[in-house]
C-alpha cells in the first residue's frame, strides 16, 4: 500500500485545475452568449468566487476532521449507515457526471473524427484506457495530472496567440447591457464548468505541506477563472455574440478557423481533437478514482480494483441512456445541477455545521 505518498503543492494545484477544466471548455461560450451576450466573463468571475467559497468550506471540513478520508468523515458524523448512504450518493453523483462526460466526449469524436465507429465501442475503449491509468493508484494519477497540466495549457496559450490575427476585440462591447434576470439564468452554466474541484477531498489529506492549502487552492481557482475568461473573450472576438449563440462548440470551431498563410499547419482539426481528448481524460480519471475510492471505503474492500470493476457497467449503461445530444443536454439540466450543488456544497456544509454543533465531530481517524 502506498499510503506514505505525499502530494506536493504543485500536485494539488495541477490536479484541481486539470480535474475541473474539462470538456465544458469547448461548449460553454455558446450557452453564455445565448443568455448574456457579451457579458459572460462577468458571470464566470462570479462563478469563480462562489467556487472558492465552496472550496473554503471543504477545506474547513477536512481540517476539522483531522484530514481524514471523506467517507470516514461522513461515517463519523452521521453514523455508519447514514454516512455510507451519503457517501454512496456522492459516488453516484461522480458516476453520473462521468457518464455525461463520456457520452459528450464520444459524440463529439464521432462527429469530427470517427463517423462510422459505433458509440458503444468508443465508450468501452475510453473506459478501458481509464482503468489502465487508475490501476497505478493515487500517486500515478497525481503525476499524470502534473504532466497533463503542462501538456494542456501550453499548446492552448500558443493557439490563443495565433488567433490574434483573426480577432476583433471590439466585439466585446457593449458591456453590461443585459437585464439582471439574464445573468441569473446564466449562472447554472458555472456549475457545469467549475465542478470538479471536489477532487480536493481525495487529495488534500495526502498533502505534504498542509499550511499551503489555501494558497494552492486559491491559485488553482484563479487560474481556472482566468483561463475560462480568456477563452470566452477570444470566442467573442473571433465570432460575434450572434454566431457564438449558434455554434454548439465555439472553441473547437475557433481553433479550426486559424488561418496563418505560410504556416506548416494548415488544418488544425488534429490539434484541436488532441486537446479535446486530453481535456476530457484528466477530468474522467480523477472522478473515476475518487468514486472507486469511496466505494472501496464504504464496503471496506481491500483494494480499489474490485470497486472500479463494479462501477464500470453503471457508467456504461448511464452513458448509453440518452438518445441523442439534445437529450444529453437536458440530462445536464435542472435535476443534475441541483444534485451537483447538493453533493458538492450542501452536504459538506451541513456536515461541517453538524460537526461544530456536536463538538465531538473532530474524532476522525486518519487513514493509516
Amino acid at each position, binding site marked *: 500500500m502506498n499510503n506514505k505518498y505525499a502530494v506536493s503543492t504543485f500536485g494539488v494545484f495541477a490536479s484541481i485545475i486539470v480535474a475541473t477544466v474539462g470538456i465544458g471548455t469547448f461548449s460553454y461560450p455558446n450557452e453564455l452568449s445565448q443568455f448574456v451576450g457579451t457579458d459572460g466573463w462577468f458571470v464566470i468571475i462570479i462563478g469563480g468566487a462562489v467556487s472558492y467559497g465552496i472550496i473554503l468550506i471543504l477545506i474547513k471540513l477536512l481540517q476539522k476532521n483531522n484530514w481524514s478520508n471523506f467517507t470516514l468523515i461522513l461515517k463519523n458524523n452521521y453514523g455508519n449507515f447514514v454516512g455510507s448512504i451519503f457517501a454512496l450518493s456522492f459516488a453516484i453523483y461522480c458516476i453520473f457526471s462521468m457518464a455525461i462526460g463520456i457520452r459528450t466526449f464520444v459524440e463529439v469524436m464521432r*462527429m*469530427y*473524427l*470517427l*463517423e*462510422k*465507429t*459505433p458509440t458503444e*465501442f*468508443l465508450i*468501452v*475503449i475510453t473506459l*478501458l*484506457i481509464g482503468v*489502465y491509468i487508475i490501476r497505478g493508484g493515487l500517486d500515478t494519477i497525481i503525476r499524470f495530472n502534473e504532466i497533463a497540466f503542462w501538456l494542456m495549457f501550453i499548446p492552448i496559450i500558443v493557439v490563443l496567440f495565433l488567433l490574434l490575427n483573426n480577432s476583433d476585440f*471590439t*466585439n466585446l*462591447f*457593449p458591456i453590461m*447591457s443585459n437585464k439582471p434576470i439574464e445573468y441569473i439564468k446564466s449562472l447554472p452554466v458555472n456549475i457545469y464548468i467549475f465542478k470538479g474541484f471536489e477532487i480536493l477531498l481525495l487529495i488534500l489529506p495526502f498533502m505534504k505541506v498542509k499550511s499551503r492549502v489555501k494558497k494552492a487552492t486559491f491559485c488553482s481557482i484563479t487560474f481556472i477563472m482566468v483561463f475560462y475568461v480568456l477563452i470566452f473573450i477570444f470566442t467573442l472576438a*473571433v*465570432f*460575434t455574440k*450572434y*454566431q457564438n449563440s*449558434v455554434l454548439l462548440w465555439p472553441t473547437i*470551431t475557433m481553433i*479550426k*478557423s486559424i*488561418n496563418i*498563410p505560410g504556416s506548416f499547419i494548415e*488544418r488544425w*482539426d488534429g490539434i484541436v481533437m488532441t486537446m479535446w481528448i486530453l481535456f476530457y481524460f484528466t477530468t474522467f480519471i480523477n472522478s473515476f478514482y475518487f468514486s472507486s475510492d469511496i466505494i472501496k471505503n464504504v464496503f471496506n474492500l481491500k483494494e480499489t480494483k474490485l470497486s472500479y470493476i463494479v462501477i464500470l457497467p453503471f457508467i456504461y449503461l448511464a452513458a448509453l441512456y440518452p438518445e441523442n445530444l439534445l437529450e444529453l443536454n437536458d440530462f445536464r439540466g435542472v435535476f443534475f445541477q441541483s444534485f451537483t450543488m447538493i453533493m458538492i456544497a450542501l452536504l459538506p456544509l451541513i456536515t461541517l455545521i453538524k460537526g461544530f454543533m456536536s463538538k465531538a465531530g473532530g474524532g476522525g481517524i486518519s487513514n493509516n
Partner: protein
Amino acid sequence: MIVSMFMVICTIFTGCWDKVEIDKRSFISTIGIDAGENIGDIDKLKKLKEDKSNNEIDFKKISVTYGAPDISKLGPQKSAASQDLYLTTDAITMEDAVDKASAKISRDINYGHIKLLILSDGVMGYPDTFKEIVDYFQRQSSINRMMYVVLAEGNAEEYVKFKPSMEQNIETYISGLMQNSDRNSTILPVTLNELLIHLSENGNAIIPSLKYDKDKNEVILTGVALIKDYKLKGYLSQNETSDIEMLRGKLKGGKKSVYVDGHPIDISIENVRKKITMSTLNDKLFFNIDVFIEGQIKGYYIGGKPLTNEYISTIEGNFNKSIEDECEEVIKITQNTFSIDPIGFREYLEKYHPSIWKKKKATWEETYKNCIINVNVHTKIRRIGISK
C-alpha cells in the same frame, strides 16, 4: 492475462470502421452552386406532407458542381498544381447533391481542403434556397471555414471549369486575387466565417462578385454584391467597393488619383484608419466618419511644379475633398438605393451606445435611410518616391 489480451485487441481495432484509403479520397477544392430548373416551383414542395416519403421526387432545385484536383498529375517531379476534375449534379439540397455525386464518383468526397465557393446570381434570387445552403455550410463540421466565397454573374459551372491563363485552376486564381487585396483596393476578400457571422447578425452581407468575359476569356472581379435578408439586392462597382473598404477601415492598399493640369497624380494608399463618432438631435442620428489615410506619391509628371511641403499640403487637400465627395456618394447609394449598412454604423451603435440601439433596433432600416453621415478625410502623404 485474458483480460489484458482483450484490452489490447480492442485498442488495435479502433480504426476499422472509419478507414478510407488515401487514394480513395477525393479532396473537393471548389463548389459551384447554380439554380436548377425547378427552383421557382416552391409551391410544389409546400404541398408535400410531412410524414410522406419524398425521396423519389425529381425536383431540380440546385445544380452543384464539384471541382477536385487531379492528384495523379501532382508529385515531386511534376507540377504542384493541376487542372481540376469536375462533376455536376442536379439536386434538391446540398446533402442530396453529395448523395447523388457519390453514386457517380468512385471516391469518397472530402470537404477538408475546400478553398472556394462560387454562388451564382441565379441562386441568390431565392432566399429560401439560400437559407438552406447557408445552414448546410454552418452545420458541417468538416468544412474549412476559411474558404473564400464569391458571387458569379451567370452560371457557376462555367466559372468552376474556367482555366485562367496564369494558374492551373480557378481556386488558385481566386485565392491569389484575394490575397492581392494588399495591393488592390477594389478587392474585398470574404471568407465563409465572415459571411456566416454577418448573415447571423441580420441577414445582410457583402460578397465579391465575378464576371466572365467570354470574348476575352477572362474572369474579372467587378466589385461586390450586396445581400439583404438573404437575397441579392444589387452590386457596387470597383471604385465604390474601394470606398466602402476605406470607410470600413480595412483597406490595405490601393490607388487614388487627382488631376492637375490634365496630369494625374497617383497616390498609393498604405494605411487607413477610421473613427466613427455620433451625435443625436431631435431623434435624428448624425454620424461623423473620420478617415485617416497614409500614402505615397507614385505618379507625377516631368515638368510639373516641384513637390514642396506647401504643394504637398495642397495636393492632400485636393485628395481629401475628392475622396470625401466619392465616399459621401457611395454612402448615399447604400442608404437610398439599397438600405444596407456595410460600413458598420449598426455595430458602432450596438457596441458603444447600447441604450440608443435598443430604441432604434426595430426600425434600423428607416433610421439608416434618414441619418446624416458626414465624411472627413485626412490624407497624409508620407513619401514621394526617390526623385524630386
